[in-house]
């Protein structure tokens, strides 16, 4: 059992590190075909900021140039993810295109203060997998009563992006066996009862990510 996120325990955590004053980059950087997927840690955050900014450009301006950049980055990852999840190349290709089309149509729902671009794209890909591969439905929680802000607070965006980058780094630093187990859970290779086994998730960074999200929810509600 990994008991690390019980709500009663979240409140007792120390405060998150203060905002360090850095502004997120909002420039569109052209990216060619990626040769390696091993991102240098201190670039991860900047890249996540950029991908989020590009989804906002798709949302605000139906920007096809930004969409093309997002496609070149995410589509091969979605395809790889779906093939790891048991789809053949043809189905994975088709579903990856569907996921990118959904990103285009639902870009107005993307909230960079609540999820990074990679997190958001993952949820679309996962839902497509349940629909297309498992032919099943996935009931979703009720939407929050508020939608994304038209002009998201840049401090909130940066803070979320930093927490998410820290979590990704902590996962990358895990011993290979643990990292593989977590990956297998998300590739759909483990049933819900098999997930009950010890996965060794990086507790500190997960708690800190949860605390941030909870602060946001409570702040919005108050």
């Amino acid at each position: 059992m990994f008991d690390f996120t019980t709500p009663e325990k979240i409140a007792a955590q120390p405060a998150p590190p203060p905002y360090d004053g850095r502004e997120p980059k909002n420039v569109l950087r052209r990216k060619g075909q990626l040769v390696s997927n091993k991102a240098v840690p201190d670039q991860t955050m900047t890249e996540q900021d950029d991908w989020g900014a590009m989804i906002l450009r798709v949302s605000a301006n139906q920007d096809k140039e930004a969409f093309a950049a997002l496609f070149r980055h995410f589509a091969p990852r979605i395809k790889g993810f779906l093939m790891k999840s048991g789809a053949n190349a043809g189905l994975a290709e088709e579903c990856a295109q569907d996921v990118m089309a959904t990103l285009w149509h639902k870009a107005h729902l993307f909230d960079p203060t609540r999820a990074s671009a990679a997190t958001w794209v993952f949820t679309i890909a996962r839902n497509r997998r349940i629909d297309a591969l498992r032919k099943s439905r996935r009931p979703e929680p009720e939407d929050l009563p508020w939608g994304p802000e038209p002009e998201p607070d840049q401090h909130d965006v940066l803070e979320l992006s930093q927490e998410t980058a820290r979590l990704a780094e902590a996962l990358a630093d895990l011993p290979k066996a643990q990292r593989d187990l977590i990956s297998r859970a998300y590739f759909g290779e483990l049933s819900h009862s098999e997930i009950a086994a010890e996965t060794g998730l990086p507790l500190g960074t997960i708690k800190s990510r949860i605390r941030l999200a909870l602060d946001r929810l409570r702040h919005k509600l108050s």
Partner: protein
Amino acid sequence: MQMPIRHHISDQLLMAYSAGQLPEAFSLVMAVHLSMCDECKARLGAFDAVGGAVMDRCDVVAMDTGSLAATLAKLDMPVKGTPSQALPHVQSSLPAPLADYIGGDLSAVKWRSLGAGVRQAILPTDNTASARLLYIPAGKAVPDHSHRGTELTLVLQGAFHDEIDRFGPGDLEISDEDINHQPIAEAGEACICLAATDAPLRFNALVPRLLQPFFRI
């Protein structure tokens, strides 16, 4: 004033929900609890971020030639984003995912009697697990039963207690194999729960066991 939710989704179930690995009936219970519980909503965000990191780092597979152009051409066509099997949305005072499965409020539920005032209604999910609403009159017991698989019970109205604990609105009870318990609805108000199980329940009394095939319990 509403009591705070005390019994939450376990890490295992939340990770499985985030990974998309739960039977539909279990996902429904997760979605309803998440609609009522900010803590679990925040925790789900973290598990989704783990999924995002896994996908971001997984081996890339090149898209087919002309794939971007094909996708761009699709963008101007009508939305195909909604899942092919999505349920229509209905307006209700219940959490949205539950209202969608009932097709309205609790008044729209088609209850069937289980005897002694206890009623249930099976909800339409795929058969990897089953979901049902249970209505237990105040002070009455749910038929004594044990489990072969996992059973999730989410309180929607009223409260029940068993030998160990009390469960009020929003609380989720997770029972695994070998738990043999007898939940009793609290006095005052009927207790309405959403329950899901991935194995048929075994009732310990003879008559309910005979009724099992008819009621799908």
